[in-house]
């Protein structure tokens, strides 16, 4: 209680424990999570086959920066790279004059570029070595972060939205709608998810979007159950009755009173869900149903490493560590959120 941080009450307040250690753990987990997100957003600035800034034929260019900008969600399409650097045939490494000014990313390789011999050990040029196709492992790891973060965040966003709408409708309206939604939830829980994967893969293609849809559309059931339960119990509370008595509309009550109460446990479940989504992506890759060969992913790296587990077991360490750290982060954050948001735990633990 003493170490409450006023800036972000949800993430940092720790009523639960008087120990500073736990707070430290949660902080570092949050810091790592933010790092992952930053790495995902800024991947081309960290590892790319074109420089961040360079002088080419007397002019300054910012290829990696414009690539970073064009990958941003929503606004990405506003940006376009300058001309010679945009061309797929343009190789900055050979085209730039050797003494021309160029600031390269710390890892000057693209994730799909075959730049060296296969299975090189870690060296000064390739900090984590190269994989079986001579691609830089660190570059792939960095760009794999984009996919994992996108898969984790977007799929859980999708699951959250679907879950809140269906669970909320069930809990708020009750009666026939509740009955139908509850059946739908049960149906989804028994449904062979594998088929959905196949169908989505073929209809949408096995890109990142496909994986996000598959995971989002199969993982919403637990959220829906949570939200339904919260809405059901919330409906009976006095302040909801009070709101109703002074004529508040149903939507107002749902959005203003019931939803905030349901958001807390949903957020906790979603945080844990991100970890599961990352693991699911790895599992799908093993079956060859993952994101596909055009994109670097942690699951895909692990799958490639599995083929060589006998001769180069070291290739597994990078993707394994990345998966482990991200899952650990999600769990610590989820646990911390749960403790901060659950007054019962907080209260009873602080008494002890």
């Amino acid at each position, binding site marked *: 209680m003493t170490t409450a941080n006023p800036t972000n009450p949800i993430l940092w307040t720790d009523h639960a424990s008087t120990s500073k250690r736990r707070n430290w753990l949660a902080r570092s987990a949050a810091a790592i999570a933010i790092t992952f997100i930053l790495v995902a957003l800024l991947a081309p600035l960290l590892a790319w086959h074109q420089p961040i800034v360079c002088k080419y034929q007397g002019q300054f260019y910012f290829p990696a920066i414009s690539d970073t900008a064009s990958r941003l969600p929503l606004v990405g399409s506003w940006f376009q790279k300058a001309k010679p650097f945009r061309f797929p045939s343009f190789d900055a490494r050979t085209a730039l004059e050797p003494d021309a000014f160029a600031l390269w990313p710390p890892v000057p390789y693209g994730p*799909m570029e*075959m730049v060296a011999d296969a299975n090189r050990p870690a060296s000064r040029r390739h900090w984590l070595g190269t994989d079986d196709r001579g691609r830089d492992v660190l570059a792939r790891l960095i760009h794999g972060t984009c996919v994992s973060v996108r898969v984790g965040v977007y799929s859980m966003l999708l699951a959250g939205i679907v879950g809140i709408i269906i669970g909320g409708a069930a809990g708020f309206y009750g009666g026939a709608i509740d009955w139908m939604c509850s059946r739908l939830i049960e149906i989804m829980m028994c449904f062979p998810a594998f088929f959905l994967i*196949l169908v989505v893969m073929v209809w949408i293609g096995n890109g990142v979007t496909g994986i996000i849809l598959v995971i989002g559309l199969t993982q919403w059931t637990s959220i829906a159950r949570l939200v339904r339960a919260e809405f059901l119990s919330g409906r009976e509370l006095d302040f909801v009755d009070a709101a109703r008595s002074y004529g508040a509309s149903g939507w107002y009550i749902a959005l203003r009173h019931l939803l905030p109460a349901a958001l807390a446990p949903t957020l906790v479940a979603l945080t844990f869900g991100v970890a599961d989504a990352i693991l699911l992506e790895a599992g799908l890759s093993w079956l060859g149903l993952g994101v596909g060969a055009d994109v670097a992913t942690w699951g895909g790296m692990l799958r490639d490493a599995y083929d060589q587990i006998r001769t180069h077991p070291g290739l597994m360490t990078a993707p394994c560590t990345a998966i482990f750290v991200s899952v650990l982060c999600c769990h610590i954050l989820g646990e911390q959120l749960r403790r901060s948001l659950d007054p019962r735990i907080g209260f009873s633990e602080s008494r002890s």
Partner: protein
Amino acid sequence: MMNAKLFHIHVVCMVLITGICAATVCADEQPLFAPVPHDRSMVDDDATLKCRLRSEPSSFNPILMFTAIDAQFEYLLWDRPFVLDKDLQWSINPDVVESFAFADDHLHATLKLKSSLRWQDGTPMTSADLVFSWQRILDDHVIARKAGHGTEQITQCEAINPQTVRFTFKEALATNKWSVDFPIIPKHIYEPLVRDDPTMQQSDACVQANRNPIGSGPYQVSEWLSGERIVLSRWEGYPGPKPAFARIIFRVMPDNNAALLAFETGEIDEMSLAPQQFAADTDNQRFKDRGVKIRGEQWTNYYIGWNTRGPNAFLTEPAVRNAIGLAINRPLISERVFFGLFKESAGFYPASFTGRDTPRTSNNFDLEQAAKMLDDAGWLVSGDDGWRYKKSSNGAEKVRAGFVLNLVAGSQTSPRVADIMRSDLRKIGVDLTTQTLEWSVFNERNLNHQFDAFLSAWTCGPDPDEARNLFHSDAAQSGRNYVGYQNPKVDALFDRGVHETDAGERARIYRTIEQTILSDEPYTFLVEAPTLWAFNHRLRGVSLSPRGPLHSYPGVRGWWTPKSPQPTDEGLRTGLPQSDAP
């Protein structure tokens, strides 16, 4: 890609298999190829052979068999009058056939079976069984995917006496000798069954008969534990030469890595190796103590099929396909993906089919030439994004030079091939994207001609005419000509080739076909895959055919192990594992 089901065809080559093996195998591995000695006392007659199965067979009924897995059992359970020897040559099985001869007009043939033949229940095997089998294969209800190949060329099949059968053919074709090579099933078992179920695979009785067949070969099915193993045991009443193993256990092991570990612990005696395993994973002492790895020529080529009549205008021009062919770095693919074990494809026929002596040189990797060819064909880097474009024929819109390459999900090698192609094609402004499709969907797209390009493998059959199925325009609707290749010249050549009986002239015809197709390039052939295999040290009598060691005759029937003073079944685990230090 090298899916078990992607198994096709037989072969006819004069490759000296042992010669090839000598080149790739160390001296201490030679005993592997030693034939069964005349002195049977040296042979261990009670040994158990443990084979690996990738997946389970679909049927033991030889008429219904069609996958490569099914074919592993074919020669063990069934005797056939004609067989493919280790060079995949058509040959008469002397243990079954008393005599066989074509009439001079090539429209008739007479086959005389041996009188000693028996079914495994003791009933004699006669010409009536053969005629019955022929009728079944041609029956409209029966789906004889593999066994039915060419059988429709036989217009009449009559039993002259219990041992003699007379065949009458529609036409005098060079391929008639393949048409008489069909399996024989016991009439006395199946005749009552097909009255109720002409398909032979739907009624319970038929399913039972297909799973526990009364065969004619030296082995009987004694156990089939679904998903785990199939056990064959030797039929001691077999009238022909007795095979060496008393039992053959087929273990179902889908995962390659796990199978290799099982090989190293002696759980299985043979397995086919992935290139990665052959080149890298088998270099440890544990493997060397357990067995040897060998490699032999195989008539399999990896290729990309281009949809020549599809919606993607980019791929419909032969010049474009030639340019892409030039832009594929085959040496790098061979080195990086296949560990230098695969050769660059020189064509799609084995050299013996066409008398080809020099390897093709036009497919050398040359990006500059490829770019120039694309420029000449009108595909120019005209947009401001660096990709090539061309005005479509009606001049209305610009078409971008790019295509989607379909890959089969789960393949280790195909994404790696695609990676190398993509990085080179980018350099000349051609955009390659890949789509990984699950097996059934991959096939459906191909059958419906809904694709730009696909990566697959094809194994050449024992007769050059079988390639008709890929290139003849008739095959576009009901064959494997998924790419929709239509060339009247090639069609006419195939029709000539099948009627030609002179070997030299046939070779010339198929050489022309091969050259025409390589220049039209409806398929771009990438690399030629060898057969890579691991065998336990104790095995002898193995022969490698251009289809691997299992799919030729005598195949596994000729394998044996020498008698050893120690108990032989050291790998057979009883209960808890014993220590089996080498």
